[in-house]
């Protein structure tokens, strides 16, 4: 302390961190001004002492600036550290007294006075300086030394093979789990193939790893390595998850009515409307009691049934058995039933059958009269003596072609159509021609004026039920006429309904009444 008198005196006032070099220079100058010879000598000795102390300190610091530096440690011996610790106390005042000349003369690097960590009490410490714990240093040193000089562990002779085997089994197990997951995902609707799936899993694993590494151990090589090893655990977790979700109750699929569905619904609606417009499909057989009646009717002989001016005998009704041609008796009887229903409906419409039009039925003999003799000579005006044809909705005419074929024709006043329905698909142009002539002449005869055909068309339905054999045209014709009398023009029967319709007609003729199950 006393040696450093001038410096200590000055020190408390000076709290700035200005370089100590300048300070020293000023101090030394001051001393030289005031000093006698003795004084100067004393100072000299003093400087010598300081130098010695400094050197020791310097050596100590260069040896242990940071205990981890291996080059110094290797050189260092335990004696050095003990020495430095012993030398520490005197060094407390050292930096203040050292002169620039001393610094220059030193062999050690020039930065010493600036960077040298000073353990002195009031000296402002920088962040670079480290606390000084010799015991800790020693321990660290020892550890390092041991680590470097540890004898190498010798490998077991099968170590490499064993490790390889373990790796292989691990790989197999991993592949196995991967496949299991794949299968589970497939069940849930995963569509791609296995290699793609493997790629997906790899991607997921990478993401997972990244998440874990950033979350828990950022920038730690060792840790990330350990995660790498944990691949199978990851896969196991995925597998468990997949199994769990597979067992869970599934949520209902989201409701997304896109255009396709909307269109489909519209179609369904259209079909339903169509169905409602069309008559319901026919049953395949009559009710059992009616069926029994039919069988009884077929066994009867003589006149079976009478209606209006028509009558049907056993030989006629037998024609309604399968695969037989129909004659005029059956058709006219049936036509009479249709006509009678229409007239009956007119009389008591509330209780009568629904949708029955006002019709007139011309018998099968009308057509040959019209074609062979014509309106005048055939005296056809007399056929409508008691009725106004033009007040009707539909005029029904069965047409016999050359005693071979039956078709149905109609004069449709409601829809202004001359109609022809042929179960063989012929459009029968002569029918239109003759009927147009007939309508005109009838109009001239009864209304004393030519008939106005504006808006009238010759019509045949685009989808007439077609017969698939050579004998059912009479049945088709009767059913055309019956349907037309109800305005049920898109016909609801086809060839497959004919066996039923034949039996139904037997019942209808036998009971002289039309059934309501269209």
């Amino acid at each position, binding site marked *: 302390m006393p040696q450093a008198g001038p410096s200590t005196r000055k020190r408390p006032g000076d709290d700035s961190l200005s370089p100590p070099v300048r300070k020293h220079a000023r101090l030394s100058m001051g001393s030289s001004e005031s000093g006698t010879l003795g004084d100067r000598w004393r100072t000299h000795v003093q400087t010598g002492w300081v130098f010695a102390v400094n050197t020791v300190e310097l050596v100590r610091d260069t040896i242990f600036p940071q205990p981890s530096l291996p080059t110094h440690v290797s050189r260092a011996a335990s004696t050095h550290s003990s020495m430095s610790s012993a030398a520490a106390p005197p060094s407390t005042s050292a930096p203040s007294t050292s002169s620039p000349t001393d610094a220059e003369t030193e062999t050690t690097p020039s930065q010493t006075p600036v960077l040298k960590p000073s353990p002195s009490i009031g000296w402002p410490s920088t962040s670079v300086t480290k606390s000084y714990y010799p015991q800790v240093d020693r321990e660290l040193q020892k550890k390092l030394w041991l680590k470097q000089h540890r004898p190498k562990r010798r490998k077991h002779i099968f170590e490499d093979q064993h490790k390889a085997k373990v790796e292989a089994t691990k790989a197999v197990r991993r592949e196995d789990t991967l496949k299991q997951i794949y299968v589970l995902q497939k069940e849930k609707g995963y569509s791609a193939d296995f290699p793609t799936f493997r790629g997906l899993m790899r991607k997921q694993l990478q993401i997972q790893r990244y998440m874990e590494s950033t979350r828990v151990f950022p920038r730690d090589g060792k840790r990330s390595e350990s995660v790498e090893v944990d691949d199978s655990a990851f896969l196991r977790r995925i597998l468990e998850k997949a199994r769990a979700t597979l067992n869970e109750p599934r949520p209902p699929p989201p409701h997304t009515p896109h255009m396709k569905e909307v269109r489909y619904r519209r179609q369904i609606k259209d079909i339903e409307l169509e169905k409602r417009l069309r008559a319901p499909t026919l049953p395949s057989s009559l009710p059992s009691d009616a069926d029994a009646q039919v069988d009884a009717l077929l066994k009867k002989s003589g006149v079976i049934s009478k209606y209006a*001016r*028509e*009558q049907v005998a056993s030989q006629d009704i037998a024609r309604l058995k399968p695969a*037989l*041609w*129909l*004659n*005029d*008796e059956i*058709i*006219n009887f049936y036509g009479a039933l249709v006509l009678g229903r229409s007239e009956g409906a007119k009389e008591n419409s509330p209780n009568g059958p629904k949708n029955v039009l006002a019709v007139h039925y*011309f*018998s*099968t*003999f*009308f057509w*040959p*009269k019209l074609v*062979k*003799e014509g309106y005048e000579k055939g*005296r056809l005006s*007399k*056929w*409508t*003596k008691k009725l106004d044809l033009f007040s009707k909705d539909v005029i029904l005419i069965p047409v*016999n*072609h050359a*005693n*071979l*074929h*039956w078709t149905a024709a109609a004069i449709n006043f409601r829809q202004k159509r001359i109609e022809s329905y042929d179960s*063989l698909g012929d459009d029968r142009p002569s029918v239109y021609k003759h009927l147009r002539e007939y309508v005109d002449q009838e109009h001239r005869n009864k209304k004393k004026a030519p008939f106005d055909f504006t808006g009238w068309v010759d019509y045949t339905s685009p989808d007439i039920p077609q*017969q698939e054999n*050579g*004998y059912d*045209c*009479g049945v088709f*014709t009767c059913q055309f006429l019956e349907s037309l009398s109800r305005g049920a023009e898109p016909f609801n029967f086809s060839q497959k309904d004919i066996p039923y319709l034949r039996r139904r007609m037997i019942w209808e003729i036998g009971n002289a009444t039309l059934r309501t199950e269209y």
Partner: protein
Amino acid sequence: MSQEPEDVKPKINLKVVYDGEEVQIKVKPNTKFAKIFAAAEQRFGKESGTFKFVYEGKRIGKEDTPGDLDIEDGDQIDCFLEQLGGWQ
């Protein structure tokens, strides 16, 4: 039926037409058509029961009489053979 009014009532002429051919048959208004049918079939050289007779579009039954159908003098009766239809 008494004979008195029958004599008083005039006989009516029926034109029976078959396929363009025409025959005249003179009948009493109360004669049953069964008799007229037989006569017509005979005239046309057909077996009995083969014809179907139609008056003004209406089928004539065997038990009917011209009087029932309001048939007047000179009216036409049409004859038809059985009509068939099948298509082979």
